[in-house]
């Protein structure tokens, strides 16, 4: 099976050129009441690169993604997208930045009052008002075809399986042709075959679109398949960051235990 390591050329170019870092998180702190979730985390991802963020439940992986897209505000630190700090941006100004970011939610978060096609068309209706209805329809069909959901355009989200919901969520996330893709547990709750299909799909999209991606997952197999680089979080900090081989060679107890249990 192909993995992200098969296509390292663009990644190497990006790493040499520091300015190519599309998402840069620096010294990020976030707490909810007395609970410190992130304690000065720093991460970055370049164009064409996929970073997998792993860790135990409750270590702030999903919070990190929500901070990157501005759904949560950090206590301190910065999140830069294309060098622009998003902290303190007004909602409408954030909109311009968010158009460059596709987000797949853990439970897909499809709009339950809209059909599958309506969900994918939703961002286009609001941001591509120059598109005719027919053009929008064609684009929706193309996006759903890319994620392997050619049929069932008129079905409601409640009538399709979890795996299909993830595919539709992915198609919706790709609708505005984002430069950055954030995936929150893309394979959680899916059977191994559906997980593998989602991994292949993400890999295919990465090869075709060369986006900067951050994938939050518990699934080490999935992370190895789709990511160029892995980061393990513990107690709100990055314990280790590097390739899977780097992780394997680590002497850190937590990393060893994490790999052993994965």
């Amino acid at each position: 099976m192909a993995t992200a390591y098969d296509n390292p050329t663009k990644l190497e170019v990006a790493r040499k050129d520091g300015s190519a870092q599309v998402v840069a998180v620096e010294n990020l702190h976030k707490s909810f009441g007395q609970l410190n979730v992130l304690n000065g985390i720093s991460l970055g991802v370049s164009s064409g690169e996929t970073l997998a963020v792993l860790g135990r439940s409750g270590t702030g992986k999903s919070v990190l993604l929500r901070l990157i897209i501005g759904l949560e505000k950090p206590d301190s630190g910065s999140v830069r997208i294309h060098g622009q700090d998003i902290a303190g941006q007004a909602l409408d100004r954030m909109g311009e930045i968010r158009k460059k970011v596709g987000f797949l939610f853990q439970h897909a978060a499809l709009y339950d009052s809209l059909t599958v096609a309506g969900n994918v068309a939703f961002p286009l209706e609001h941001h591509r008002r120059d598109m005719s209805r027919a053009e929008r329809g064609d684009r929706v069909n193309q996006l759903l075809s890319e994620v392997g959901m050619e049929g069932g355009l008129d079905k409601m989200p409640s009538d399709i399986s979890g795996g299909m919901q993830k595919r539709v969520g992915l198609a919706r996330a790709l609708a505005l042709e984002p430069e950055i893709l954030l995936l929150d547990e893309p394979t959680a709750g899916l059977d191994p075959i559906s997980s593998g299909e989602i991994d292949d799909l993400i890999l295919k999209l990465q090869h075709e679109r060369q986006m900067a991606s951050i994938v939050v997952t518990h699934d080490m197999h999935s992370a190895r398949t789709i990511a160029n680089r892995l980061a393990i979080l513990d107690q709100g900090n990055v314990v280790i960051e590097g390739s899977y081989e780097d992780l394997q060679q680590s002497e850190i107890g937590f990393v060893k235990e994490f790999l052993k249990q994965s």
Partner: protein
Amino acid sequence: MSGRGSTAVADMNQPLPRPLSYLANSALGVCTGFFEWFGNLGIFSWQVLKAAVTPPYEWRELVRQLDEVGSKSLPLVVLAGSAIGVVLSLEARYSLSRFGAKSMFPVTLVYSVIQVMGPIITGLVVCGRVGAGMGAELASMKVSEQIDAIEASAINPYRLLAATRILACILMLPLLTVAADASGLLTGWFAQSLVEPLSFHQFISTGFSGATFNAFLPPTFKTAVYGLIIGLIGCFQGMKTRGGAEGVGRAATNSVVLGSLFLIMADVVLVKFILVVFH
């Protein structure tokens, strides 16, 4: 002396007895919650106002909400207005007969329905139907991350979800009130004419004799404020909810309870305002 003083200081440092401490903490919690709620409502209102007055405007969603709030509430409002018309007719006829003032029946009914009962009944019925619906729908969207998904899609949820719903309530309440008034007057006249024949023309001409626009327009248009309250409370409770199914239920209940409460309190203020300004 110094010994007694140090004893007094030591006494003050003693923790309060447990029931008192519990009461003090509870009272403090209630006060903090009260001000926090109003503070959050103020911030929410400001966000909605900013979103409502800046483009792009969500016309299609507004039309959908006008239908949702207006057309779909119409049967219920007409039914409630009709029932109130019959009740007022029966009560007014009985009370006026006792004082030998039966000739005042049309005026009494017209003024009672249009100035008092029509607006408040419409407000309460719409608050029950629309307020609960908005609270539950938005809360459900919130807990299933659909509102986050809207925001992540670079769409302002305050503009798309809240501003359209609140505006629809503001625009539709006066129209629904007119419908409730009309049905109330019609059934009131009908109930009266069953007991004692009275032509509709005579009922209307007597009822509205000497009436001015000032007598009827302000009570009708004050319901736009009811609409603002219903929409604002419903959207606020829905969009700021926390928790799962329990949060959704709480948002729906609070939307109706708080909406009705604020609506009645607003009525007190608005009645006084109308009396001072328009009479």
